[in-house]
């Protein structure tokens, strides 16, 4: 089961995680920081999931109660229904975390498990622990905390692709070419990405294998080779080419060979996104004078206008659940916000209201979105739950664009 996300209630289970005790002799400041980060990462994961509210330690409580130690009852008074307490000890080159999860009122032990990890990979351990807590308290397995986001990060004049953990941590480069590298799109296998690079001067499509970051040019036709979208089964790519004189959508093999031209119109057609059943494609076109989102059948027929509200609607992203299409719309103040709409045009919902927001993309469970947002003069990545709650800034320092949320890791 891939995440228990069929329904979402406003209720968030209040849970507390106490700082674990260290039993292993002397402690370096570095390891102390790692341990603090480990626990905080678990809290952030639980909070991100949308199922939990994190109850925080409150020193005032201890003062009021005239005690020096938080206990089960104390956490219950602060509102927590479940409490995690732990002990960390050295284990080989890493550490072992023994974690007990119990009900604060009943004292019922939900689980008592040990997790081992390496110091330099402590965040992965934290994601596993969070996944276990969700499994025991909500009954569904989720691998969302082990997913990654590919995005462009500008440093100086170069825009390179980076991989980030789902929470924006551990940004690491996967291209290093100078010039412009944008618009990554994952294959469902999670082992490769197609993207647009100017490394040879023209915006061309390249394929990147993540196991060694090797690349291969797949479309360098004159003009645009941009906006790739990978077919849900990984067999094809839909991309924007202007080789025939104007930006049109084409169906390509993974090798870049043209399978079929999909659109025929003198206006701009770009930003394709494919429904998870592979039957429809949504895209942006300015055929009515301004950019609007349209849908069409997978063979290019039966084109229908999807968006009607607003004069600039673009950047559609079809939810992996199939029932919503996210896109951005320009408001009266000139800034862009993320909206979602059903593929039949019903149920328009606005998700963001701050900054100017672009390039939404869905998490593999269809429960969250990542997007780039210009706020305070910097463009950073944010995540948000599909209903517009739980908005989180996941990068700092600016320069982040065109995020793409990767699939679940393969076992």
């Amino acid at each position, binding site marked *: 089961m891939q995440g228990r996300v069929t329904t979402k209630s406003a209720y968030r289970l209040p849970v507390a995680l106490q700082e674990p005790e260290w039993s292993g002799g002397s402690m370096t400041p570095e390891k102390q920081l790692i341990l603090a980060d480990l626990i905080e990462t678990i809290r952030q994961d639980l909070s991100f999931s949308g199922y939990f509210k994190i109850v925080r330690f409150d020193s005032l409580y201890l003062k009021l109660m005239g005690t020096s130690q938080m206990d089960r009852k104390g956490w219950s008074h602060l509102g927590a229904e479940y409490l995690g307490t732990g002990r960390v000890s050295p284990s080989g080159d890493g550490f072992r975390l023994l974690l007990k999860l119990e009900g604060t009122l009943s004292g019922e032990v939900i689980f008592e498990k040990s997790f081992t990890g390496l110091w330099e990979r402590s965040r992965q351990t934290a994601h596993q622990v969070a996944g276990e807590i969700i499994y025991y308290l909500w009954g569904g397995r989720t691998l969302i905390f082990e997913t990654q986001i590919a995005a462009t990060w500008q440093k100086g004049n170069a825009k390179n692709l980076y991989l980030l953990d789902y929470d924006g941590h551990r940004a690491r480069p996967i291209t290093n070419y100078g010039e412009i590298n944008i618009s990554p799109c994952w294959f469902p296998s999670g082992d490769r990405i197609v993207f647009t690079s100017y490394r040879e001067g023209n915006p061309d499509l390249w394929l990147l294998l993540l196991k060694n970051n090797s690349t291969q040019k797949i479309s360098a036709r004159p003009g645009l080779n941009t906006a790739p979208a990978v077919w849900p089964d990984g067999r094809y790519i839909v991309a924007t080419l202007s080789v025939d004189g104007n930006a049109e959508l084409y169906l390509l093999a993974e090798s870049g060979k043209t399978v079929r031209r999909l659109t025929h119109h003198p206006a701009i057609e770009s930003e394709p996104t494919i429904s998870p059943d592979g039957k429809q494609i949504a895209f942006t076109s300015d055929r009515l004078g301004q950019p609007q989102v349209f849908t069409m059948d997978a063979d290019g027929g039966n084109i229908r206008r999807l968006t009607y509200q607003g004069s600039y609607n673009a950047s559609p992203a079809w939810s992996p659940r199939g029932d919503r299409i996210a896109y951005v719309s320009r408001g009266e103040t000139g800034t862009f916000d993320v909206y979602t709409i059903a593929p039949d045009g019903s149920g328009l919902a606005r998700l963001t209201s701050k900054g100017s927001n*672009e390039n939404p993309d869905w998490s593999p469970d269809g429960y969250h979105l990542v997007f780039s947002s210009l706020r305070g003069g910097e463009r950073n990545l944010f995540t948000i739950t599909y209903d517009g709650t739980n908005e989180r800034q996941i990068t700092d320092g600016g320069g982040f664009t065109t995020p793409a949320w990767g699939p679940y890791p393969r076992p």
Partner: protein
Amino acid sequence: MTFKLLRFVILAAVILALAGGCSSKKKGVESDTPPLTEEPPPPPPPPPTDESGDLDTPADLELQTIYFEYDKYSLKSDAKDALSKNAATLGTYTEVTVVIEGHCDERGTVEYNLALGEKRARAARDYLVDLGIQADRIRTISYGEERPVDPGHAESAWSKNRRADFLRTDQ
């Protein structure tokens, strides 16, 4: 006729500039041998002269940038004026080839703006071709919103960034 006159004016300007004393450039003009690859960065080789053989292209030949309205690729009248001047220059220096770079401001999506930038570059190219410039002397490329001249987030920056730049490719 106007091209001839313009040629003369530019030639005069070039002579004045050279008289200002750039010996290496003069040397380059006199020599027809290709530079040896072992040598330190050579001065730019002299551009080949056209058949009438009377004029070299100045290195700093000026081609004007044109500007666009938001989310538009139609040519405004001032853009057409600038393109007419660029066409005159290209008509004079027939060995010059250019790439037209289409650019957008940041307000819009990355991928749509790549297509919009291409529309702008091609609108400029088509206008030059209509004015008699050979299409094979002009290449186009779009940078979308990726290469702003002004990184600001206000109209003062945006108006400068919605542009088509003309860069020589024969040098």
